[in-house]
């Protein structure tokens, strides 16, 4: 067991920190969270800067340890997170890199890395959320096109996306995990209607997407027809394995800010609150160690993180909610003021036990795939 980094890794960290120190002050001010076009421009602009500096591929081409260092240092320095590039960089990109043809990799990977194109995720449907394989959006062949009809929901960034990683049912008679196909759908195709959904936090983070006989070239299929479920599992293991690394670092920073705020406003004198903050410190230290543990395992076993990601995701989503509940306690009645820091974050944190597989689904995964308990009720 070893927590130290190699000289090459330390050199990467130092070079990155130096670059962040000179680059971040040149960034434009952050756009309003409700202004999606501005957010797209900001996030893709940041990705372009990373690309030009040689960090464009760090999410999927670097070793897991270098990726960990990248996420740690960018968060410490207060750099933007992936934002609107999330699906492209962390889902579609890695999936195309792993499963795409040389032509597909050439067509799509470069624009993702340069921040030229933004992707959204067309997985969930009104009748297929946690039970993703129950999806019903149909696609049938018409010459060298698939014709797609149905609807998707919870599609983040759909308003500003160029491409959608889309799961469709191509064989309605096959068992539900078979008969699914993974398509890259251009968002400017005819027959697509995007209707933003307002979240409980007041913002339009995601949308409903209606598909009415949308024509998608067969050449846009990644993996074989009816093999989309397997391709999707590749994507989801990325999502659960590494997507939250930067956020753990961010939570540790928020926790320290909470303690300072409590000291300044007198709440620190409450031993109950102090002890909750202390316990959260233990919690996020452990989550950081668990991240390092998972990354080391991933590095030893090849680079796709396994079901250990579910263990992390379960613990982390609840810890994040506890963090912002504690923030509310620090703020007192200020926790009802949406203009105060952390109040909107508290609302957003409510999605963490639902998005990317609910906690209940994650527990089933842990119980069945790690502990080997029988499938069932």
């Amino acid at each position, binding site marked *: *067991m*070893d*927590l*130290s*980094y*190699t000289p090459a*890794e330390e050199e990467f960290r130092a070079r990155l920190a130096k670059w962040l120190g000179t680059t971040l002050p040149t960034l434009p001010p952050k756009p309003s969270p409700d202004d999606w076009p501005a957010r797209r421009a900001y996030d893709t602009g940041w990705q372009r800067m990373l690309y030009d500096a040689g960090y464009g591929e760090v999410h999927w081409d670097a070793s897991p*340890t270098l990726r*960990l260092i990248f996420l740690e240092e960018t968060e410490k320095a207060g750099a933007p997170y992936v934002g609107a590039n999330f699906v492209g960089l962390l889902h579609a990109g890695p999936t195309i890199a792993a499963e795409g043809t040389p032509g597909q990799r050439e067509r799509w990977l470069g624009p993702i890395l340069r921040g030229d194109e933004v992707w959204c995720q067309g997985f969930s449907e009104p009748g297929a959320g946690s039970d993703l394989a129950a999806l019903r959006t149909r696609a049938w062949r018409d010459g060298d096109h698939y014709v797609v009809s149905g609807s998707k929901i919870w599609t983040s960034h759909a308003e500003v996306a160029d491409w959608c990683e889309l799961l469709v049912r191509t064989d309605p008679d096959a068992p539900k995990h078979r008969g699914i196909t993974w398509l890259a759908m251009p968002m400017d195709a005819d027959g697509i209607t995007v209707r933003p959904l307002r979240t409980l936090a007041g913002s339009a983070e995601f949308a409903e997407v209606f598909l009415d006989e949308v024509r998608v070239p067969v050449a846009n299929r990644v993996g074989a027809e009816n093999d989309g479920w397997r391709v999707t599992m590749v994507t989801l293991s990325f999502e659960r394995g590494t997507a939250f690394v930067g956020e753990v670092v961010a939570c540790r920073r928020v*926790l*320290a800010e*909470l*303690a*300072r705020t409590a*000291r300044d406003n007198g709440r620190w004198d409450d*031993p109950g609150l*102090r*002890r*909750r*903050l*202390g*316990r959260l*410190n*233990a*919690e996020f*230290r*452990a*989550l950081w*160690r*668990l991240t*390092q*543990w998972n*990354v*080391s*395992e991933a*590095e*030893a076993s090849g680079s796709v993180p396994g079901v*250990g990601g579910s*263990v992390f995701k*379960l*613990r982390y989503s609840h810890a994040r909610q506890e963090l912002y509940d504690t923030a509310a306690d620090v703020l007192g009645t200020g926790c009802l003021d949406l203009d105060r820091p952390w109040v909107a974050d508290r609302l957003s944190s409510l999605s963490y036990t639902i998005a990317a597989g609910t906690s*209940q689904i*994650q*527990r*089933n995964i*842990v*119980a*069945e795939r*790690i*502990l*080997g*308990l*029988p*499938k*069932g*009720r």
Partner: protein
Amino acid sequence: MRFRLTDDQRALKQGVRDVLARLFGPGELRAAADAVGPPRLDRTRWRALGEAGLFALCLPERAGGIGLGLPEAVLAFEEVGRSLLPGPTVATHLAAATVPGAATGETVVTSVDGDLVEWLEESDVIHGDTTGATPLRSMDPLTPLHRRYVAAGSRAAGAARVGAAAPLQRGQATPPPPSTDTAAPHTDGTGTTSPRVADLLTAAEQLGTALRVCELAVQHARTREQFGTPIGAFQAVKHLCADMLVRAETARAAVYAAALTATPEDIAAARLLADEAAVRGARDCLQVHGGMGFTWEADVHLHLKRAWVRAARGGGSAEHEELLAADLLT
């Protein structure tokens, strides 16, 4: 960064597990739990543990030890925790460098911890002041306990929390005066000294319990049938088991990292998470066992009681939480 066990560490862990299974397997555990009267320490077994190197693990080779570090000690004590081996293992291990015979298992060492002391009657050397210590009817049938009545307020003022400087030899006519030296560090025998090593080894034992009770619950849930199906197929049971594993794996990351950094903050975090994983894990394990879990025959109560005893070591969670809270302001 290679934050995973090396082949040698894996082998060490397996070796300790094998030794413990030979010396204190399920049969011995059951016999000890069912024995009448206060538990007695099996001296033959204690010497065998000494021969196997449990107490000398971190002692330098020139002093007759094995010369390993804290990470290895933590892996060994995780196995000790799993096995529910009785005896003041942590105190004796920590005394290996300073008390003659401790390293070989000839001498049994215990230490006063706040107002409690484990295995007082059965130990040869006691670190700390035992004036006025009276036996408790210990909830854990495998850990005899004495309680020392500490005047109100004196504990907060710095009563001996961990081993004080002057060991008391049993049978000594005049006990040394009560020590108030709280700074006396534990030594792990490697030259690094830290007053928190006892906390870390306790956390390792709790981790062992957390992982063991998760295994017991899963074993039971796979085989016990109700309504014509293994109860592990029911989501309500499945989720209890998943939560046990998540707590144990989170604690594992914290405990192993603390063994590598040995900082007071990491050790405090490891204690908090490992105590939680052991105590809540044992309770959930009991729940998965249903009515059987509430009987003396199921081993799960032994794990829960030991987890409670260990959780009380070092004064409980408040001190660790306060330390970690203060850390946020630095």
